[in-house]
């Protein structure tokens, strides 16, 4: 195991703790939008997809990477937009 991977574990552990603490008392009304928003954030894998699709790894990597970009983008764009739509319903009524 290399030093870099070990350091990555520090960030991993810290991010888990931060994630655990971020959500405490969410009213039931917001469960679905929050789930949907978090789902969109999990599309962060799009960065890896971009690196693969646009990198210098040959045809197979390009193709697979492109597909990864596509699916990740569906997740990101669709996720944030659908969340926005749900939240609009709450917002427009205050």
């Amino acid at each position, binding site marked *: *195991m*290399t030093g870099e991977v070990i350091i*990555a574990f520090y960030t*991993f552990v*810290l*991010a*888990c*703790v*931060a*994630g655990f603490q*971020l*959500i*405490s008392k*969410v*009213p039931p009304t*917001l*469960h*679905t939008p929050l*789930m949907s*928003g*978090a*789902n*969109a*954030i*999990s*599309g962060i894998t*799009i*960065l890896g997809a*971009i*690196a*693969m*699709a*646009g*990198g*210098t*790894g*040959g045809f*197979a*990597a*390009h193709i697979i990477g*492109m597909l990864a*970009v*596509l*699916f*990740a*983008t*569906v*997740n990101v*764009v*669709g*996720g*944030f*937009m*659908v969340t926005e*739509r*749900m939240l*609009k*319903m709450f*917002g427009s*009524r205050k």
Partner: protein
Amino acid sequence: MLGAANLPLNELLAHFGYIVSILMFMVGIMLMGRVKTAKNGNRLAAGAMLLAVIAQLVQMKTIDPVWIVVGLVVGALIGAVASIRVQMTQMPEMVALFNGSGGLASLLVAVAAYAYGGIPSQPLAGATIAGSRGDVNGLAVMLSILIGGVTFTGSIIAFLKLAEKMSGKPILLPGRHAVNILLAVLVAVFIALGVWVLGGGVGLALLVLVILLSFIMGITLVIPIGGGDMPVVISLLNSYSGVAAAMAGFALGSHVLIVSGSLVGAAGLILTQIMCKAMNRSLANVVFGGFGAEAATGGGGEYKNVKSADAETAAMVMADAQSIIIVPGYGMAVSQAQHAVRELAKLLEAKGASIRYAIHPVAGRMPGHMNVLLAEANVPYEQLFEMDQINEEFKSTDVVLVIGANDTVNPAAKTDKTSPLYGMPVMNVEEAKTVFTMKRSLGGGFAQVKNTLFECPNNFMIYGDARKTLEEIAKAVKEG
């Protein structure tokens, strides 16, 4: 390649972009937890994603843009169109599909990382990605594939169940626990073989095997779970897809992936637990219980002395009522009755009645289901009340309209210790002067238990599709 050498400017900028976007994600998630700030939270997170993508492009020295652009444009189009065209009531299915898409993306990233030159013999992404090599990379690739694959097929099954393209009933294969254990052992062996025994180099055949197994596991994990539990399952799968992204981050040595992915993984897990708690269940119970399957044999139970009424009678009673509370449930979603409800409420308000809506935290088939539907029908916000706020008010209320709710208004949850619902807080609708319950039959709700409300002397069933019933009542009110 991160190391002791000084970083070029573009990498420096990229990393600052990543760090800022991580902060924005965290604040965004926090804001999404409160009604007032939720919208800003979502936008902040979306902005963070944009920033992270830009930072990624800045970080890469040589870009072959075609592939990226094609993927981005097509993906964005699909996502945008799908999210605009989806009906409010189909949100849960949609979220499931998006989530599966994200899981598949993480799987593909890991495969691409492998295709990039094999793990770990060749450098990965040149200067653009930190290239820590070794067993851990192989392991991360494998785990990213496994978790991504499970997320993918699991979400598809969840989608199919929610969209009713597949029976919502739990499908309990004989010996399913043994099968699951076998699958887990198999996949562990393949991963270990690929990563350690073959010396950190993952063979293509093993990779394909792991992909296949992950797909199968996603299916076997989700089919035994009842359709009603799908929201919890989706939330759990959402947590998984975060972990898959984090694993892809380990594989590529990308800290922003690791951090954001595990952030979502942890937050999603907590959210899942909160959702379970609101349903008075445990997570283990949802995942392993096959809950609803066993109970389903119980059916709706035998009923005695059930009274019913027709739309005209109900209209008469309501027209005279001073205070009316409307209690919607899953049946309102099924019959798409939200607009009809609002119309009737307007008519009754015009007649001088005070109208309030009582929302049970787990009414419907996903948290917030009723809120979203009623919002779609433009019900004024100040008429909506959470259960805790209104539960004491029923006893001083003239008429309660139960619209396709069942479990959430079942008094047995308060009194019958043998009921599967026992302990779940329910609405005290039976305390009102008169209750009208609209549903198609005496059939059970999600939990398939007998509802003692139906036998209460002050309760009247109005059989039929909820929307039709409501429209008939509205017509009668208008005419009468």
